[in-house]
């Protein structure tokens, strides 16, 4: 294994190690007043962070010096033996990026558009990003699905969902009125 690939293998652990050390220092700065001799609110996080630092230091050093070769958990060992451990599958970065962007946009817009409109748009967009080619079906899925979810959660399960703002709120209110939801 080349030095470069060893460095790449140990990089996630080095990043975590640095973060853990930073948080350990931060934990020492937590302000509190406690009786003499009592453990403060920093004790537990520091104990956890000390363990995290030790594991990350060990793992990054091991990967730098020896490359891979981890001790697998029991389930991992079973799956490796059965050939069902799904490592190394190809990643469609564009698809994933599109999916994450659609999710973030949905979260950002749901307060403005309200649940019905934002969900209809999100469902249609996500179905397309997921590789389903028929636009009509994707759109129908969005509208019908969103309507069904509104009925299911607002009418049957009594969950309060965002109504949106401005004209979109008026639209949501009109819709739930039509559906007989109070």
């Amino acid at each position, binding site marked *: 294994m080349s030095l470069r690939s060893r460095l790449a293998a140990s990089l996630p652990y080095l990043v*975590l190690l640095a973060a*853990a050390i930073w*948080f350990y220092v*931060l934990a020492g700065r*937590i*302000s*509190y007043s*406690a009786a003499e*001799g*009592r*453990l*403060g*609110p920093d*004790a*537990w996080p520091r104990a*956890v*962070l000390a*363990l*995290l630092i030790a*594991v*990350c230091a*060990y*793992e990054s050093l091991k990967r730098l010096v020896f490359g891979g070769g*981890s*001790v*697998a*958990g*029991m*389930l*991992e*060992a079973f*799956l490796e033996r*059965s050939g*069902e451990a799904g*490592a190394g*599958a*190809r*990643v*469609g*970065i564009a*698809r*994933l990026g599109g*999916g*994450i962007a659609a*999710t973030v946009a949905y*979260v950002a817009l*749901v*307060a403005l558009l309200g649940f019905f409109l934002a969900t209809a748009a*999100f469902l249609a967009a996500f179905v397309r*990003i*997921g*590789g*389903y080619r028929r636009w009509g079906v994707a759109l129908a*899925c969005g509208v019908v*699905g969103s309507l069904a979810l509104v009925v299911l*959660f607002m009418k049957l*399960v*009594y*969950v309060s969902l*965002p109504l949106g703002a401005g004209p979109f709120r008026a639209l949501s209110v009109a819709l739930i009125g039509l559906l007989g939801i109070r």
Partner: protein
Amino acid sequence: MDVLGHLAGGFIAVFTPLNLLVLAVGLVLGLLVAVLPGLTLVMGVVLALPFTYTMDVTPAIILLTAMYVTGTYGGAFTAILFRVPGEPIDVPLLWDGYTMARRGEPARALGWTLFAALFGGLLAAVVMVAASEPVARLALALSSPDYFAIIVFGLTSVVSLGGGSVANALISLCLGLMFASVGIDETYGAERFTFGIPILSDGIEYLLVMVGAYGIGEVYTRLAQGYGTATLSGVGNLGTRLPRLAEVLGLKATLARSSILGILIGIVPGAGATIASFVAYGAEGQYGRRRAELGSGIPEGIVAPQTAATSSVGGAMIPLLTMGIPGSGATAIILGAFLLHGVQPGPQVFVDSPDMVYAIFASLFVAVLGMCVVGYAAIKLLVRVLELPEAIVSAFVVVFCFIGAFAARNNLTDLYVITAFGVLGFLFERYRFPIAPMVLGSILGPLAETTFITSMISYANDWTVFCTRPVAGSVMALSLAALVFPLLRHLRARRRIAARS
């Protein structure tokens, strides 16, 4: 007699219209989730959470438990018929179940699966009822160091038994514990890692960690790999042929061995149906009468993993209800549901709410029976669900996750948090960090910290108390053994390879 009386009351409670309705819904949803591409048992239980918010605690837990138990069975259909294991639990069913089906006996393979699930599920339910009260009485006598040691055992066993490497599992666990420590500290009221952000002062809800990492994370993983749609053939003449009594009696050793293994593995915190399924198959290969034929499509290879997987459910419910310690990913979410309803499972619930506990017990019996009836009658319809495009299913999963996260606190910022945990869940899957330790850490973190601090206060900061008290010391030794065990297995495997070469 007291237990039987309570159980009879539990059955009466289950047969009230609302409880029976949620149980039926749980059965159907659990089977659908197990069959649907891209959905796992744990995800299914996560997705059902928002439906439980406005319910009472008893129907809420009945719904989730029904989904949990059916999730160990439904995946068998697609594994046996189409070589599509819904999740790792079903992998051992490929070896004999699929082989038997390919040999032209799919109905026989499905019949054995149904019988194994029925037998394992019912036996485990009986053991759960018989063992829970004594365990709860024992748990009532535990001190805080003992309790802390038991939590540590739960956390270390999820590290050593789970997926990924032990180091990665430890890192995942530490991250979960750290997420749980964000916010205002309960003892001193001090702010920890809030960075002046108001939403962080309320802490990071375990619900957001589990819904984000399990639900959204899995969707992102599947999205990155590319979705597919299964094309089914030969569904028209599907059926289930139950085994005859003589055939069942011939497998009594397998049934007994696998049930006991399943229940015991279920009880161990951190180990779940998947480990039970693999271990039972492995035990059959080691001790079974027809071990040499295993893998060639024999009933033993179907019965062993299926019996163990379903019986692990009853086992996993014991530590959950008696000590508040989840034995698997699904029970971690059921624990979350209990907490959302303001109920802390543990020995005290047997004293305060025996009606609820026994209704849950009774519901497991009814769920196992109902699961088999639905599985037998509706198999053709259930496997048709496999034809649903995964892209559509995943889009709805994301929305369900959002509703679940939003409805808990009516806070839109939580949606950003679960999206972030979704990305983290994807990265975990990608770099083979197991998610279960992080989720368990975020749920059990506050309890672990409280029992740790209480122990330190009660015993004047004497750290040795965790080793010198009989119960705490023994459980800590078990925790150490759980951590050392994978290392020893690894070294033995390396030595074996070296000896061979």
